[in-house]
C-alpha cells in the first residue's frame, strides 16, 4: 500500500488541500461512497413481471443477480401502474426471498403431531395413488334415473386467485377429465 497515497486520502488532508475546508462534503466522501452502484445496474438481467397481489396488475421489474432476485420494483413502462406499487407490491422481493418462506416439502401422517420431510417426487406419487383410489371409490356412473354422471365426488379443490391462467387451465382440464367436479376458486369467496 502506498503510504503517501493513503495519507493524501486522509480526509483531514483533503480538507486542508481541497475545496471543502470544513470537511462536510467532497473531502470526507469514502471510497465506498464514491464507487457506490445501485443493484439495479449491477444486476445480471432484468425481467418484466406482474405484481401478484391484486387485480390492478401493476408492472414489475425483477432484477436478478447470480440467479437470485435482488430487487423488484415498479415498471415505469406499464400504462396501468406507471412504475408505482402499493406496499404489498413493494414487498414482493421479501415475498420471494423471505427466510420464513416454506421451501421444503412436508408430510404429516394421520394422527401425527408433527411434520416429516419427504421428497416431492414421492409425495406426488402418493397423491397420484390416492387420486386414483378415491376416484374409483367415490365414482358415480349414473344417477338414480340411469342418466350418465361420469363423475367422482371424492376429490375437491379450492384454488387461489394468484394462479396463472395456464395453471387454472391445466387444473380444470385434468380434474374434469378425472370426473372431479368440486373444483372451486377464490372467485367464489
Amino acid at each position, binding site marked *: 500500500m502506498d503510504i503517501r497515497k493513503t495519507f493524501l486520502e486522509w480526509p483531514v488532508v483533503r480538507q486542508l488541500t481541497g475545496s471543502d475546508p470544513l470537511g462536510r462534503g467532497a473531502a470526507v466522501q469514502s471510497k465506498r461512497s464514491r464507487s457506490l452502484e445501485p443493484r439495479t445496474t449491477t444486476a445480471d438481467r432484468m*425481467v418484466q413481471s406482474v*405484481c*401478484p397481489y*391484486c*387485480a390492478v*396488475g401493476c408492472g414489475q421489474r425483477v432484477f436478478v443477480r447470480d440467479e437470485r432476485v435482488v430487487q423488484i420494483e415498479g415498471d415505469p*413502462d*406499464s*400504462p*396501468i401502474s406507471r412504475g408505482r406499487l402499493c*406496499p*404489498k*407490491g413493494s*414487498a*414482493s422481493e*421479501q415475498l420471494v426471498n423471505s427466510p*420464513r418462506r*416454506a*421451501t*421444503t416439502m*412436508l*408430510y*404429516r401422517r394421520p*394422527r*401425527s403431531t408433527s*411434520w416429516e420431510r419427504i421428497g416431492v417426487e414421492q409425495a406426488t406419487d402418493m*397423491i*397420484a395413488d*390416492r*387420486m386414483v383410489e378415491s376416484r374409483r371409490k367415490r365414482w358415480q356412473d349414473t344417477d338414480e334415473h340411469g*342418466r*350418465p*354422471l*361420469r*363423475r367422482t365426488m371424492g376429490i375437491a*379443490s*379450492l*384454488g*387461489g*386467485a*394468484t*394462479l*396463472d*391462467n*395456464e*395453471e*387454472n*387451465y*391445466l*387444473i380444470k382440464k385434468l380434474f*374434469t*377429465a*378425472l370426473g372431479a367436479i*368440486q*373444483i*372451486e*376458486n*377464490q372467485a*367464489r*369467496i
Partner: protein
Amino acid sequence: MGASFGRGGATGFLQDLEKADCIVIQGSNMAECHPVGFQWVMEAKARGARVIHIDPRFSRTSAQADTYIPIRAGSDIVFLGAVINYILSNDKYFHEYVVAYTNAATLVSEDFKDVDELDGVFSGYDPETGTYDTSSWAYDGVSDHPQGDAGGQGAESEESASERAAGHELGGHGAALEHAEVKRDETLQHPRTVFQVLKRHYARYTPEMVQEVCGIAPEQLLDVCEAVTANSGRERTTCWVYSVGWTHHTTGVQGIRGSAIIQLLLGNMGRPGGGIMALRGHASIQGSTDIPTLFNLLPGYLPMPKVGPHDSLDEYLKEIASPDQKGFWTNARTYTVNLLKAWWGDAATAENDFAFHYIPKLTGDHGTYATVMSMLDDEIDGYFLLGQNPAVGSAHGRMQRLGMAHLKWLVVRDLNLIESATFWKDGPEIETGELRTEDIDTEVFFFPAASHVEKDGTFTQTQRMLQWHHKAVEPPGDAQSDLAFFYLLGQKIRDRLAGSTDERDRPILDLTWDYPVDEHGDPSAEAVLREINGVHLTGEKAGQALNTFNEMKDDGSTAGGCWIYTGVFADGVNQAARRKPGREQNWVAPEWGWAWPLNRRILYNRAAADPDGKPWSERKAYVWWDEVEQKWVGHDVPDFEVAKPPSYRPPEGASGPAALSGDDPFIMQADGKGWLYAPTGLLDGPMPAHYEPHESPVTNPLYNQQANPTRQVFPRPDNPSNPSNGERGAEIFPYVFTTYRLTEHHTAGGMSRWLPYLSELQPEFFCEVSPELARERGLVHNGWATIVTARTAIEARVMVTDRVVPLPVGGKLIHQVGLPYHWGVGNEALVTGDSANDLFGVTLDANVHIQESKVASCDVQPGRRPRGPELLEFVADYRRRAGITLETGNKLRYPHSDATTGADTDGQGEGTP
C-alpha cells in the same frame, strides 16, 4: 353484469377513469384495496372530477373523496333504487341512448307481477323451494314460443331454466332468449314497457326510504343524484366503481344490477370515463373465472353440463343459446366443439359429439361451501388447496377447519405454512378441545409453491387484460409451480391407468396431455397458452394459431381451449407479453398486454357513438363510424362487427350476429340491448329489490319480506343464524358488523403476515367502533373487545374512531363494527390473531353461490374472550339466550302472514293471484 350487458368483466379499463367527470365509489375501498389503480381516480380529481364515496366505513378512500356518505351495510340497493327513481321521475335519463341501446322500450309479459303486487316477491315464487319460475318475467311475445323441452316436465323445466340462467354467472355472455323478435314501444309510454315497469318498481325508493333504511339524509342523496345526472349525457360521463362490498351479499348480483340500470339510463355504458369498474380483488380473479376453476363453468363461460337436460351436446347447446336469438352467443356450438377438441384431440369426433360425454355432469350446487359440508359428512377423501387459505379466508372458518379434519388427505400448495396447512396442530379447535391432533386422521401434504417470478404465465387483471410474467429465477428448494405439479400429477395418474379398458378411464387416457418441457422437466406455459388460444388442426393453416374466435369452426378442424382468449396468440405471437411502454401510446394503450375479447379495452364501445355512428360529442369521442372507410374506427378496437354500418337492419328471420342491427351495441345480448330489466338470466328477480341481509337488526320497511327469498340457507346445527329484527332474541345481537381489507395485508394473510415489512404496518387484529358504541359497551381504545355471533366469539384490539358513525335507521341508532379479516390463529405467521371470518355463517347468494360475508349482526363486549372449552360454553349461552333454533333466520318467506304455521300453503296462496 353479464345479465345487464352480456359480459361479466369490468366494462372499461383503469386508466380510463381519468376521463370521468364524476366517479361514484360504492361497495369498494379502492384507495386501500387497489392503491395503484386509485391513481386514476386522483388524476380525474385533479382534472376537476367529482369523487363520491358511499360506504359503511370512512376509509382511506373516503379521505380523498370530495364527498363521503356513510351507509348502513347491506342497504345499497335502496340507495341505488332512489337514484333510479330520481332519474326517472325527473326525466334525467339520456333519452336517445335509452331508447336506442337499452330494452326500455321492450314490452314485458302480462304475466309479470312486481314485488309491490305480491307482497315482497316477484311472480313465480315457490315458497317451498325458495326459487322462482322465471317464465312470467319474459318479454311480451316470448312466451308464445314454448321452450323445447320445458313442456310439462315439472322439476326439470325449472332446472333447465336455472341452468340457462346460470350462464350470466360472472360470465362472458348474456342470458338466452328464444328469439330476437320482441315487442317495443319507442315512446316508452306503454304501461308494460320496461321503462314504465321500472318507474313503478322504483317509485317506492324515495328519499325518505333512503333515510329510513340506509341512514342517509335526503340532502346527501339529492347531492349524489344531481352530481351523477349533471355529469352524464352527451358531453359528460360518470363511472361507477364497485368491488366485493357489493358481491359479498345475499343480494350481491342485484346490487351490481342497480348500478347497471343507472349507468344505462344515464347513457354511460360503452363510453370513455363511464361504465362500471368491477374491481376484482386479486391478481387473476378475472382469469380464474374466464378459465374457471369453478364447479359450474367451463372455459369461456360455457356452463358445465347438468345431468338430464344436458345429456347430449345438442341438448346442452340448445340450453345455452337459442339458435334464433341475436348476438354472438349463438355460436356456442363452435366454442364448445373447440374446447372439446382442445381437450380430447383425435378422440373428439363429430361422430361421438366431440366426446361431450367425457365431461362429468352436475346435479346441483357443488360450490365450495357445499363441498365443505360434504367433507363433514365424510363424502370427500381428498382436497387440494392451491394458494388458498380457507381456514382464515372463507366464511365460517370453524366449519372449514372441522371439515378438513374429516378428510383422508389434504394437499396444500403455498408459499408459506398457512393456517389451513397447520390447523391440525394449532387451529382454534385444538384450543377449545373440539379437535385433538392425535385424533385427526387427515394426511397432510405441504408443497412449497413457486412465486410469480419463478414461473412463466399470464394473470388476467381486473380489466380483462392478460399480462405475461416472465420467469426470472428457478424456484428455491422443493418449490415448484402449480403448472409443473399438475402436469406431473396428470402424467402419473395416466401412467397408473395406462392400459385400462374401463370406459371411465377414457377421458383421462384420451386427454391431450403432452406439452413441451424445459430442461427441468417443467411444461411450457406458452404452449398451454397457445392451446387456450386455439390452432387450426387441418387445412393449409394447420398448426397455426387462431387469430380470432371468428376463425373457429364447429366441424373439428380447429381447437381452442377458451374461445374468449382466442387472439392472445394472434399471428403466433404471445400478445399478452407485449410491453410497448405506455408513454409511447394513447391512454387506451392497446399494445400493452392483451384484453379479451379481441383486445377491446372498453366493452360495448359501439355505444360511444350515437345510433347514426357519430360520437355523442367531440369530448367523448371513442369509436365511431367512418363513412369514407366504411368501417368503425377510433381509439380502441370496436366492440362490433367492424364493417357493419349503423344503418344495417337484419333481414326477416335472421339470427346470431347477423340479427344484430347496426345500432345494437350489446352484441352478446340475446336482443342486442342493455338490460334495464332482465327477463331471464337471474334467479332472484328481473330488477333489484331491497331485502335486508340474512342477519339484520332492522326490519325491511319496503316489503313484507325480510331477506332475499331465494338466498341459499343451510339450516344445520353447525351453522346457526342470529335472529333478525322481529324474531325472538334479535336484541341479543344488536350491532351490525362488516369485514374489510387493509392496504397492508393480502386477504387471509398468506402473502403478507409472513413478511416483516407488511406485518409491522398492521400487526394486530382490531375492531373499529364509534365513540358512541365504545361508551355504550365500555370499550377502551387500544384495549380488547369480544365480538360474538351464534357461531363463535373472537377477540380484537379496540380502535375507537370517529370514522365509524352510528346511523339512525328504522327508528333506532344502528352501530356498525368494522373488522379487517386478515389474521388467523396459528404459530407460523409473524403476526396472528382471531379471524373475523369465523364470525360468519354460511348463507349464499342464489345466483352465484357467493357467501354473505360483508354484513351480519353481532354483540360486542369489552375484554378478551374466554379460552378453551369455556369459549364454546360462552357462545352456547348466547344461543340459548337468543333462543336460536335451526329455523332462526332461515325462513325464506318471512315475515309473512301466518309465516309460522302452514307457511307453504299460505305462501302459495299469496303468490297466485
